[in-house]
């Protein structure tokens, strides 16, 4: 456990004690802010009854941020260590492969959640100036952040896998971007395909990230979605672990 914490501290330090970390946070803040400007301008012209949080997921901004930010957050994790050779010094200490994978993933998800904090400020502004009390409601808020967390887990675990299989950060970022876009397209396909009796459409319905996020934003917790996200994250982290272990049977 203490080794895990040491690793986690080190990973967090490399996020928060580096310029890149703050550049990522600044970029996310800028995009969140921009999307709210566009959103509010839209609402101003065309009044809307749903809470602002719900509308936020309805736009492509949220997904754009997700698709762009997660590869940048995760690309460094394994690829940089492999390129600089520190992966060798790390793996020749008595640390477990699982500890390494989990520490890196935990640090990434923590950083990712911190990067989303400016969203609160936007919501606060909306509430303050529109008297829309629903924007900062505890239920919708926790639902929203749970949604952000779960979707983030899936995308970041894909990023971990991409970083583990590549030796350069650029490749890692590209692979995880492609994986992310694929999942996103699948979600898009799922949204546009109505569910009928066929099992294909029923399976596809699980990939309907948009509606699932919509539910989260409303404060509704759909266990099926939670399980889907959790198992997808688990799968990708398991694959990452196998890749890290693979040097033992190569």
């Amino acid at each position, binding site marked *: 456990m203490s080794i895990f914490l040491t690793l986690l501290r080190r990973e967090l330090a*490399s996020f928060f*004690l*580096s310029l890149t970390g703050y550049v990522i946070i600044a970029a996310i803040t800028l995009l969140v802010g921009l999307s709210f400007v566009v959103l509010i301008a839209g609402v101003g012209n065309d009044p809307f009854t749903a809470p602002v949080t719900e509308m936020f997921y309805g736009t492509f901004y949220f997904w754009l941020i997700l698709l762009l930010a997660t590869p940048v957050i995760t690309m460094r994790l394994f690829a940089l260590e492999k390129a*600089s*050779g520190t992966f060798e*010094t790390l793996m*020749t200490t*008595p640390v477990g492969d699982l500890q390494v994978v989990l520490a890196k993933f935990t640090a990434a998800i923590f950083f990712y959640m911190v990067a989303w904090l400016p969203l609160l400020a936007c919501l606060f502004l909306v509430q303050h100036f529109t008297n829309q009390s629903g924007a900062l409601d505890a239920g919708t808020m926790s639902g929203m952040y749970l949604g952000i967390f779960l979707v983030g887990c899936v995308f970041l675990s894909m990023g971990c896998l991409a970083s583990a299989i590549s030796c350069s950060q650029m490749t890692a970022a590209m692979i995880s971007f492609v994986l992310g876009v694929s999942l996103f397209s699948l979600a898009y396909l799922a949204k546009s395909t109505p569910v009928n009796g066929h099992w294909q459409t029923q399976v596809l319905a699980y990939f309907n990230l948009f509606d699932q996020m919509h539910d989260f934003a409303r404060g509704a917790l759909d266990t099926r979605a939670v399980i889907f996200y959790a198992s997808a994250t688990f799968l990708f982290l398991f694959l990452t672990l196998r890749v890290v272990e693979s*040097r033992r*049977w190569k």
Partner: protein
Amino acid sequence: MIEVANLTKRYAGGRTAVDDISFTVARGEIVGLLGPNGAGKSTTMRVLSGFMPATSGTVKVGGFDVFHDSDETRRRIGYMPENNPLHPEMRVREYLKFRARLKGLGWKKSRERVTTVMEQCGLTDVGRRIIGQLSKGYKQRVGLADALVHDPELIILDEPTIGLDPQQIRSVRALIKSLAGKHTVLISTHILPEVEMMCGRVLIMFDGRVLASDTPENLQRRMAGGSQVIAEIAAPLATLRTVWENLPEVAQFDLAAGEGEFFRCALTPRDGEDLRPLIYNLARVNGWPLRELTRSRHSLEDIYMQVTRPTTEEVE
């Protein structure tokens, strides 16, 4: 301490980096792994450190198998890979503490050990400096301090002096020498004098195989047979020729005109004997001016030539 039996490492793609090698290293020994680039030194060390598995064969460190008891062996090994990778953005003390914690040392113990190894490696003054801004010599010492921080039984150093200036090389060598007795040390290098200075025993690797394993002195002796003596003597050419022809100690000689009256004689001894006192006496007795008398030091290349020759003949 180290028992390697029939170790073979084949990389994906079929290249065999290490081909069926066996050797043992006793506790407290300083052993040099000598060989040209691509001889399989680094691969052997990577297998020993538990970073990569062997394709076949067994490797034991302190009685534990590096593959099956990986954690146990990794606790006992301090490994510094080639090119000494470090985290350039960290501070020296911070990095060493991080490494000590990773190697399972408690909070208090790691503080103590870090202070000790920083003193041992002469890093006390740069503890607060950022690693990326240190000179190469200091970085190398940080790598060494990292290898030492958990007080391991076995220290594996892959080319610890590469890229350092002579002053730095001297201090790193002195540091490694000071480890003798307390730790078992395995060093790889392709610099022969380095091995002579630091190691009690040398393993010569070439093309994935161990070709010789002996003390540096014995290797020297084996080599001495081939070492030439160069003498520049001012004497008539014909006289010199007859003298060398009649000396039983000289197996072969070569004469070339030098500056002025001097002739450059390259002499090969018959039984690895040192010809220099003999030549000096000759020159003194005959009153020949003598302005150079050296024994050419056999280079690493010569050793390779020497040790690889029998095997090439076998093939033929």
